[in-house]
């Protein structure tokens, strides 16, 4: 497992996780790495909790990350960061969007946790909260929050600028390219 890096992305169906993970996987391939990605379609996309596993390195076997195996946890929503926290290895890194989406199950019973960053800190060595919705709005389109978040952790990845460019061109329709590039750049500046 040592040669493979594991990125787990979690959030709410409809937040653009699949697009962000597509761009990430394409960029890793363009950087000359082996890459595998796994997710679930169908029922999971109806506003439920969703996860995408991205693994890369010289040679990748499993498409799935085991609990405790993720080097990097990327959450598009605060509560979802805690749901997938058991997948992060002790001492790993978490990038979490400040976005809050209250689930319909918060009708009595368990409430929305108020101490997300503290709980993450118990397992993660480094927790970076990213104002992805704010950055996306600044870029000019609120739907680019996922790409802004991707920009925030991009400096941690062995992916040169040219490879990101290849991935953007492959996965993002022409008319949305510029706004996504801008969101990515704003994320990159915010994450460092």
């Amino acid at each position, binding site marked *: 497992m040592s040669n493979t890096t594991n990125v787990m992305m979690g959030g709410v169906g409809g937040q653009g996780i699949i697009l962000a993970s597509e761009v990430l996987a394409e960029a890793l391939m363009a950087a000359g790495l082996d890459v595998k*990605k796994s997710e*679930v379609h169908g*029922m999971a996309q*109806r506003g439920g909790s969703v996860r995408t596993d991205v693994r890369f390195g010289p040679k990748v076997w499993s498409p799935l990350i*085991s609990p405790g195996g993720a080097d990097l946890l990327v959450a598009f929503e605060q509560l979802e960061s805690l749901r*997938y926290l*058991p997948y992060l290895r002790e001492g790993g890194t978490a990038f979490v969007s400040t976005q809050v989406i*209250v689930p319909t*199950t918060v009708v009595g*019973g368990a409430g929305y946790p108020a101490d997300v960053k503290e709980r993450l800190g118990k397992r993660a060595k480094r927790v970076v909260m990213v104002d992805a919705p704010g950055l996306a709005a600044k870029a000019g389109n609120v739907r680019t929050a996922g790409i802004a978040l991707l920009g925030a952790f991009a400096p941690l990845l062995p992916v040169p600028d040219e490879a990101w460019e290849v991935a953007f061109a492959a996965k993002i329709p022409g008319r949305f390219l510029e706004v996504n590039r801008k969101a990515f750049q704003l994320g990159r500046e915010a994450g460092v």
Partner: protein
Amino acid sequence: MKCLLSGNEALARGAYEAGVRLATAYPGTPSTEITEAIISYPEVFAEWAPNEKVALEVALGAAMGGARALCSMKHVGVNVAADPLMTAAYTGAAGGLVVVSADDPGMHSSQNEQDNRHYARLAKIPMLEPADSQECLDFMRLAFDLSEHFDTPVLVRTTTRVNHGKSIVTPGEPLPARQTGFTRNPPKYVMVPNNARRRHVVVEERAQALRGYSETTPLNRIEWGDKGLGIITSGVSYQYVKEVAPNASVLKLGFTWPVPAELIRTFASQVNRVVVVEELDPYLEEQVAALGFKVEGKSLFPIVDELNPGLVAAGLSGTPAPSAAPEADLPGRPPVLCPGCPHRASFAAFKKLKLIAMGDIGCYTLSVLPPLNAIDSCVCMGASIGGAHGMSKALGPEAKVIGVLGDSTFVHSGITPLVDMVYNRGTATVVILDNGTTAMTGRQEHPATGKTVRGEPTVRLDLEALCRAVGVKDVQVVNPCDFAAFEKAMASAVSHQEPSVVIARSPCLLLTRERGKPVTIAEEQCVECGLCLQLGCPGLMAEQGRKRELRPVVSEELCVGCGLCAYVCSRHAIKEAGRE
């Protein structure tokens, strides 16, 4: 040129490279994208069939006509197509016929997790199990060659992690699509008993030949390593094995019916410990055990749910698997009906009228979840109607029983049970939730949308005329988002003792993308009764109440202003934009 493809995209590419002429399917997770990917190849005739049985019959007909044909479906679709499948094994498939069964261990989007490898054994047809996207492409090409060579349908069996996993693929050169034509051959194609008796002998002779092929195919290979541990595996489980036991000896099986008995003997006799790693049933394990070897498998790994590297490592070492369970106090986030979904309005009416609702397969199955809690059964495609008819016969004609299903599901398997209900003097009500698409699998066309898989216009199936034609006299078409009118129509339909159909027609919001302005709540009027929150709409959030436990707060981002919450509000505290 290398590219990153999902297993489904690679299966479509492999079929295209093999010169496939016809591809047919009914949408079903995790198989849907095979057909969606194949329409990028204009040479291929592609179609959505009304169900998997029809799809397989179409594909078999094409293969009899000398063309290569692909038929893909999810695991439970094979149950629907099992009738033609069993006898297609007898007729053979001259032009080449490949059936994809996309299984769903873990039931990410399914009603059961049956292991369809048993079908290959039952039908006595060869089975291939790819382990990543490159193998999806390569195995699909080979599957067509095998189908033609052995004159048999071939089953390509995948699982969710293969279908929806993406990995790097090097595509090949496409073969020209061939068409060898139809050669009349009644003893082979007309399965009356006298012909079928002779064909059964052919099936058994072919099985013998396939056993020989299984021994020599490069799809089955030994990767020698440390001979202390020998692992036999197939499909995605192979990836988990290589991940966690890189030094073990591995027998990787890509051709899994018939299994290669001699190769297994060679492998098992040279290692100290034989372990089978496979998801779901002990399909390989039992066949290895039958060869007389001491083998471990389901004693180490779970028979339920899908595997992952952590579970495989834990099973091999006899240690507990790492837990993926989040902290217990986290609120869950199950999938929900979209804000403004017309189905929510329908189910709110059923609940208000206290109907027994026999449900079906589709987005609307989500209405079983709290707080809506609005359906009483869900079994398989079309089961709502037969179920409602049976239930109303059991409870008597006074009972208010409905069978409720979507438009695509009705076309798939709802027509024959409706005929049954009318013919046998049933009294239940059938509600067709007609949102103009196959929503759950990602909005595919179907016969009642009037468009083909490529979006081209075609003859539209007229649902109301169809229901009348089978003998239902009381057919109403109502928009469920016209809340009061729909409630009235439902009350009327369930009140009289004859079969009735209500077509609840309102388009899926994912199709129209229509959004109204969010509702507003007059706080001084709200008594925090909770009726609106019982709708389970993501557009309404529950916050700490001032008077009682919880009060509704509108989510400006999610509310589309459908007004259902305003309709159910006991105090008229919720206002629709532009309405007083």
